[in-house]
C-alpha cells in the first residue's frame, strides 16, 4: 500500500518539475552548472571504466572462442556487440546512478533539511522546478554523450588489449568491429540511455526532495536514491530489450 503513496507523490512532484521556468536566463545558467557537475565531472570515471572493461571483454571473448574453425574477426564483432548493446548503456548508467544519483539526492536533501527549499517557497519560487528541472534536462542531454564516449573508449580499450596480448591481429579485430554493423544498435543504446538518465535524475531528486530530519536522513536518502534507481534501471533494461529488439 505504501508503494502507491510513494508513486503518487513522485508523479505529483514531477508535475511541479515540468513547468515553464520563471526566468529563462536563470534556468540556462543553472543548466550549464549542471552540465559541469553531472557531465564533465563524470568523464574521468566513465573513461576509466570503459577502457578497462572494453579490454576485459575483448580478452574474455578471445579466450572463449579459441577454436580454429571460427574466424578471429569474431573477437572484434562480439566485443563491439557487447559494448554497444549492453555494457555502455546499462553498466555505465548503473555507475552514473551511483555517482550522479547520490550527488543529486544529497544536494537536494541538504537543501531540504537546512530549510533552503522552504526559503525558495517562501519567496514564491517553485522549488521543484527551480532545483530539479536543470538536473533532469542536463542528464538527458549529457548522458547520451557520455555513453557514446564510453562506447568509443570501450572499443579502443578492447583493441589495445588485443594488441598487447597478440590474441589476434589488428586487421582481424577491426574487420570484426565493422562486420554487419547496424545503426539501429546505436539508436537502441541511446534510447535506453535517455530513459535511464530520466530514471536516475528524477528518482534521486525525488528522494532528496522528500528528506526529513537532518544529516543522517540525507545520507539515507542518497543511499535509497542509488538503490531504487539501480533496481529500476535493471528492470527497465529487461523491458526495453524485450520491446526494442523483438
Amino acid at each position, binding site marked *: 500500500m505504501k508503494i502507491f503513496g510513494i508513486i503518487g507523490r513522485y508523479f505529483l512532484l514531477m508535475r511541479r518539475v515540468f513547468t515553464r521556468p520563471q526566468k529563462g536566463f536563470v534556468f540556462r545558467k543553472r543548466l550549464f552548472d549542471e552540465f559541469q557537475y553531472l557531465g564533465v565531472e563524470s568523464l574521468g570515471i566513465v573513461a576509466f571504466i570503459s577502457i578497462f572493461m572494453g579490454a576485459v571483454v575483448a580478452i574474455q571473448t578471445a579466450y572463449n572462442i579459441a577454436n580454429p574453425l571460427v574466424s578471429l574477426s569474431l573477437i572484434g564483432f562480439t566485443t563491439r556487440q557487447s559494448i554497444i548493446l549492453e555494457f555502455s548503456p546499462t553498466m555505465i548508467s548503473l555507475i552514473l546512478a551511483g555517482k550522479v544519483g547520490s550527488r543529486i539526492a544529497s544536494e537536494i536533501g541538504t537543501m531540504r533539511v537546512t530549510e533552503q527549499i*522552504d526559503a525558495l517557497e517562501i*519567496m*514564491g519560487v517553485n522549488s521543484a522546478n527551480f532545483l530539479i528541472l536543470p538536473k533532469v534536462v542536463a542528464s538527458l542531454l549529457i548522458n547520451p554523450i557520455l555513453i557514446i564516449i564510453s562506447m568509443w573508449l570501450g572499443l579502443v580499450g578492447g583493441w589495445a588489449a588485443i594488441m598487447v596480448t597478440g590474441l589476434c591481429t589488428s586487421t582481424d579485430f577491426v574487420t570484426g568491429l565493422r562486420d554487419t554493423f547496424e545503426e539501429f544498435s546505436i539508436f537502441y543504446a541511446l534510447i535506453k540511455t535517455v530513459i535511464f538518465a530520466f530514471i536516475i535524475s528524477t528518482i534521486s531528486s525525488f528522494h532528496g526532495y522528500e528528506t526529513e530530519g537532518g544529516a543522517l536522513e540525507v545520507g539515507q536518502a542518497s543511499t535509497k536514491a542509488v538503490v531504487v534507481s539501480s533496481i529500476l534501471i535493471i528492470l527497465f533494461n529487461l523491458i526495453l530489450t524485450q520491446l526494442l529488439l523483438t
Partner: protein
Amino acid sequence: MIEAKKINKYFGGFQALKEVSCHFEKGKTNLIIGRSGSGKTVLMKCLIGLYEVDSGEILYDGRNFSTMILNERKAIRQEIGMLFQGAALFDFLNVEENVMFPLTMFTKQSLKEKLERVNFVLNRVDLKGSNKLKISELSGGMRKRVAIARAIAMNPRYLFCDEPNSGLDPQTSGVIDHLIKEITEEYNITTIVNTHDMNSVLSIGDTVAFIYNGQLWWSGSNKEILNTTNKELNDFVFGTELTVRLKQYFQQKEQ
C-alpha cells in the same frame, strides 16, 4: 497587521495548535515566545503557508490568506521576508548572489540597479564589502545578517524571524535583535519573531504572545511580563538560575 483567528493544526492525531487567535501589529516587533516544542515554529509556518491550517483564518492587512489560490499567495509572498532558524542561505551562491536572488527572480531591474540595492542592504546589516564571500566562509552571526539582508532586499511589508539568535553569543544576539527592531521601525514592517530568549523579549518585544502546549496562553507587552501572575509564563520567564537569583535579590532588597 497580521491576524490569526482560531487556527487549529493537527499532525496526524497530535494537535500542535489549539484555537490560536492573535494579532501582530505594523511597525512593531511582535514576539512569539514559549518553550521548546510548544508550537512556535508551527505557528509561524502556518502564518506563512508552509503548513496548511486545518481550520481558522489568517488575514494579511485584511486579506484572507487561508482562502487564497496559489497565485494570489505568491503575490503576498513577495511582500514577505523570512529569516530562518539556520539562516537557510543558498550554498551554491555567494553573499552577493544570495541577496540579489529575490531581485533576479521577481524584478526586471538591470544588474546595476540590483547591485545598488544589494550594496545598500549589505551596508545596512554592516557587511559592506563581503559581496564575494562564500557562505561556507561566514560565521554564524554573519550568516544571520546576510539572511536579514536577503529578507529585506525586496522591501517586505512583513518580516518573519524564526529564532534569529539561536546559536549566537549574547552580544551578537543583541546586535541581531536591534538590527531587526531598527529595520522594523525604519520601514514600518509588520515583524514577527519567534524566540525563547528572555533577553530579546525585554529588549525588543513590543508585543509578546506566549504559546504553551499549542495554545495562546498569555499576551501583552514586555513591560507587563515581569509582573505577571500567570504561573506557566512565570516559570518560563524565570526559568534560568540567573533570573531566579536576580528576582530573589531584588525581593530581598525591597523588604
